[in-house]
């Protein structure tokens, strides 16, 4: 049986590259706040890029 996968990108979240740390940050679009800073290189999966 095929594995269930999430369809499409996560809502109310975007990601942007912080040029100072060279890491992607996750932002909550409802609150306009940074909620997470990626610790490894590369963008988050299934999060829309700003």
């Amino acid at each position, binding site marked *: 049986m095929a594995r269930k996968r999430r369809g499409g990108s996560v809502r109310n979240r975007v990601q*942007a*590259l*912080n*040029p*100072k740390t060279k890491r992607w940050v996750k*932002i*909550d679009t409802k609150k*306009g706040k940074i909620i997470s800073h990626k610790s490894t290189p590369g963008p988050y999966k299934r999060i829309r890029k700003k």
Partner: protein
Amino acid sequence: MIESRRGRKKKTIEIEKYIKKCCSDKGYKIIKATDIKRSKDYLCKICELIQSVAFGIAVYTDNMPPDTLGNISYEVGCMHSLGKEVYIIKTSKAKVPSDFKRTEYIEEKKLKKDLTERLNDLKNQANYMYKLGELSSEAGDLEKAAEYFKRIYLIMKDSRAIKKLETILIKINQISEETKKNKELYMRLAESLKYFLKLA
């Protein structure tokens, strides 16, 4: 620019010359607290200057007297608390406070290359701040958004930032008329924005 008045040796003057050249190449004007004469308290003048600049450069040189070291560290702290970028330049033998031990310095030997690189990077940072500002504005956090756009304007003299600030001001005026909650806060924010836009 933050720097001591005393002990201006040859090295300090040389560093200053390089800083002036790098900044003027990128279109930035150097402001030194000692060059501006006002009939105000000296500390007030420094605080006002810190608020009005895009970024700061602190210079630590050899054998710097403790009082000067204290002054510079205080000014660097002020800039950090306002979320402004500070570039620390130090000579090889200069002693800096232990709080800045993990900070990436610009060594005097690589001054020209490193400072130019950092100034180039400011544009990328401004673009990143623009994205954050837009998101904050969309989410309704107007105070934060205004802060981002002010900083972008100071760094790049970007007309987009001014347009955004004008839109924020209109929104704030609408909100302060409609709501009774936090009215004073909105009015204060509107006043500061009006003053900023007047000077821009």
